[in-house]
């Protein structure tokens, strides 16, 4: 049909035009030296539409509701990013373009954490000039209280991660500030004076600064805390405070008069107003973005598949950014399910899978790049290598068959592959894997399970996996904080094997890998630590129980009215909400 032909022609024209504009835009950049020129993927490496004009409204829309906007009660990446507008954490990620965005910089604290030599004691000094929106001065006790309520009181605030509980001394015994009314609170967080806070950890943990970026360290005044209801009257320490908050529907933020640039070097805080709407249909959000009536899709996970053709059309593609989502999808080969107890059988799968086919099936290159390592490129510690290189990433039948022979199954074997039935692209990837393994004689039966019960009842339950012969399991993983440890700890460490709900689907319990992980996290030398994550990644790939498929990517769209737009790698490849402003 004509229109379809036209689309193809348009696509080709777009590709050519983009190629041309990419060159010209980089030229422009060097000419002006401002870094403001737009273009496809421009916001991945620079701040697009740079502006220092104050005023305007940034409007967000979200297709769902957040777990909570309370900084102490959220696990969502986008709320971690967004809450920095009204909550200052001890330290945070630098609002900057490219890899610079992975740097940690002081925010409420005056400097990064000072660690003891054994990485078990961490001390922060906080600024003496930060006030809440009602004018009360922020003290270190408020930070201590915020961490206590967010990590230790699941009866009221159950959504957030509980890393502080896991690492602080006595964390397992403390019952939280709502139940335990003792004035001292948790003994392992000390506040010797109003500007000092000291954390005592039960084991060495050199990534502690990353925990201190969590929204959970944003101060909360105990006198104003109403537990689960606090979300309705959050006390702001950032440049914006809540003018209105309608649970599950909308929120409006306006300037906080107690904040000034003098006490906050990080935030440009250009817009006068920020609006947020929840429960807007995903495709509607994309249409609003294209029409320029809103500034950002708050979820930051990219446009809907149905909108992809119009977003990628010639007129719009220059305003898209295809960012790394900080997650890798992979196949976990369970080392306790035959024949994958034999490393050569695992290697046969490594060689046989046509990753390009998987990529096409999962939605093409805008959905992800072919992966050869477990760590994605946007995580501190990523090192590029490929232990099982095949031409065009299309798999190597000869090498796969040789590996099959080495493992004593020259004719192939039959196994099961689990996938989440309600994730269309995961099911499609599984189908592509099934097809490429068929070529070497491995018969794969796909078992699909609902995503909500995938870890609690099926793939995350070793007993179920063994008794049902789930040799292969589709998996995707993103880190809670962007370092090798934040990424790897929960998926390859032997201690992460749980009777139910675990994420170490391979049941990988290799003493070398376990030791390498615990050694590295105790190392306060950050360069050595960062290098170690790449080495551990390599050890995992040598074990061959993980077949990386794709580094996930988001297809983001920035309307031309959005200014100061850049992708932050620290928050799963969404735009940096501290920087973004609007010409509208």
């Amino acid at each position, binding site marked *: *049909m004509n229109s*379809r*032909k036209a*689309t*193809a022609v348009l*696509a080709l024209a777009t590709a050519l035009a983009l190629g041309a504009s990419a060159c010209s835009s980089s030229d422009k950049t060097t000419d002006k030296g401002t870094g403001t020129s737009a273009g496809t993927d421009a916001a991945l490496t620079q701040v697009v539409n740079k502006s220092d004009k104050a005023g305007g409204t940034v409007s967000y829309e979200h297709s769902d509701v957040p777990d909570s906007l309370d900084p102490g009660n959220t696990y969502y990446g986008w709320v971690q990013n967004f809450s920095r507008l009204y909550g200052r954490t001890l330290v945070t990620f630098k609002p900057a373009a490219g890899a610079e965005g992975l740097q940690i910089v002081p925010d409420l604290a005056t400097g990064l954490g000072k660690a003891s030599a054994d990485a078990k004691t961490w001390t922060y000094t906080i600024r003496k000039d930060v006030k809440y929106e009602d004018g009360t001065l922020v003290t270190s006790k408020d930070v201590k209280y915020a961490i206590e309520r967010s990590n230790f009181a699941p009866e009221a605030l159950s959504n957030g991660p509980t890393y502080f509980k896991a690492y602080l001394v006595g964390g397992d015994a403390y019952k939280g500030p709502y139940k335990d009314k003792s004035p001292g609170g948790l003994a392992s967080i000390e506040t010797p004076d109003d500007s000092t806070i000291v954390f005592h950890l039960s084991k060495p943990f050199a990534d502690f600064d990353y925990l201190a970026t969590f929204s959970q360290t944003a101060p909360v005044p105990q006198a104003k805390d109403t537990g689960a209801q606090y979300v309705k009257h959050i006390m702001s320490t950032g440049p914006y405070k809540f003018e209105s908050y309608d649970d599950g529907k909308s929120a409006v933020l306006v300037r906080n008069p107690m904040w000034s640039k003098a006490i906050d070097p990080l935030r440009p805080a250009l817009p006068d107003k920020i609006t947020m709407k929840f429960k807007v249909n995903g495709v509607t959000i994309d249409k609003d973005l294209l029409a320029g009536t809103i500034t950002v899709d708050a979820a930051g996970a990219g446009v809907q*598949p*149905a*909108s*992809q*053709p*119009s977003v*990628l059309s010639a007129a719009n593609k220059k305003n898209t950014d295809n960012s790394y989502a900080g997650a890798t999808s992979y196949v976990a080969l369970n080392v306790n399910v035959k024949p994958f107890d034999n490393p050569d059988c695992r290697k046969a799968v490594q060689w046989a899978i046509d990753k*390009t*086919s998987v*990529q*096409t*099936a*999962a*939605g*093409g*290159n*805008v959905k992800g790049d072919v992966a050869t390592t477990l760590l994605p490129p946007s995580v501190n510690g990523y090192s590029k290598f490929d232990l099982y290189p095949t031409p065009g990433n299309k798999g190597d039948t000869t090498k796969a068959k040789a590996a099959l022979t080495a493992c004593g199954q020259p004719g192939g074997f039959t196994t099961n592959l689990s996938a989440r*039935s*309600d994730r*269309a692209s995961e*099911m*499609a990837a*599984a*189908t*592509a894997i*099934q*097809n490429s393994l068929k070529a070497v004689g491995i018969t794969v*039966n*796909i*078992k*699909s*399970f*609902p995503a909500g*019960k995938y870890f609690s009842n099926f793939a995350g339950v070793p007993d179920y996996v063994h008794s*049902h012969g789930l040799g292969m399991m589709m998996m995707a993983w993103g880190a809670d904080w962007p370092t090798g440890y934040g990424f790897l700890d929960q998926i390859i460490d032997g201690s992460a094997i749980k009777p139910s709900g675990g994420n170490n689907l391979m049941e990988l319990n290799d003493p070398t890998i376990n030791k390498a992980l615990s050694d590295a996290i105790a190392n306060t030398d950050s360069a050595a630590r960062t290098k170690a994550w790449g080495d551990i990644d390599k050890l995992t790939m040598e074990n061959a129980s993980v077949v990386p498929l794709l580094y996930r990517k988001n297809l983001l769209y920035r309307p031309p009215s959005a200014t100061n737009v850049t992708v932050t790698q620290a928050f799963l490849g969404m735009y940096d909400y501290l920087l973004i402003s609007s010409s509208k």
Partner: protein
Amino acid sequence: MTAPIETTAAQAGAQPEAILSGVKKSQIEGRSLGQIAWLRFRRDKVAVAGGIVVILLVLLAVLAKPIESIFGLDPNAFHQDLVDPVLLAPKGAWGGMSWEHPLGVDPQFGRDLLARVIEGSWVSLLVATGATILSNVIGTVLGVIAGYYGGWVDSVISRMMDTFLAFPLLLFAISISASLQDGAFGLDGLPLRICVLIFVIGFFNWPYMGRIVRGQTLSLREREFVEAARSLGARGPFILFRELLPNLVAPILVYSTLLIPTNIIFEAALSFLGVGIAPPQSSWGGMLTSAIDLYEADPQYMIVPGLAIFVTVLAFNLLGDGLRDALDPRSK
């Protein structure tokens, strides 16, 4: 409602041969219920067309595998070189139509759509027919018992129907399909999935049939021929299955042809929710499911299985309407 058919059948079936022996058969031949219905049915051109399409579809479903091998169609062969990885659509116009792939290819794997529609036909029809038969058997037996015996038997069975109708069928279908992933009842893989689908769809749809049959039975059991049988000493089971059931054939047959298309759509809905047939096996519902996400990029992918379902449902409905008119002219 069934009165004229009943009398015709009684006259025709009584003893015409004995009384009218010697007369040319063709002149005075008594016409059976079936023959009369067939005559009426044949006059209804639309219904005949529906019937022909249904027969063709059944032939297609039964002969799917031989047809595929004769024409060299492979529903599971990948042709990803025919797919544009950026636009999530097949290269070329009309969803990648070509002589090699007359209906185009699917946008993720480049699998031939014609082959997949043919391959999907037997799954969809088998599930729909199987489920219809299952719900008919349960519905008819329980409905006729409830209607004939009445009293507490009727109350118990009717409440049971209410319970089943109130059951959150989709939730149950999802959980049962998810929990029966592996071998069960000595079955595995595709046969198991098909049996599970037939069971889930059929077992929870019987009350609709049950209510219709119960209502018919209620009116029939007061009729003279039933009283006559009873006065001659016939017992419950005989009356149920020899007197009542034959008179219920018409509504059962009609309702079945209308239930089959509903079940085809239900199979599609279950596949849409991801608890239908496991990949790579194609089914019409499964094809629709994956097409939904990509309709803007590749409308053809949705149109092909959509048309297949549309034509099948329409043909069964026309056939059902025609059958009803033929078997039960007063309802016209």
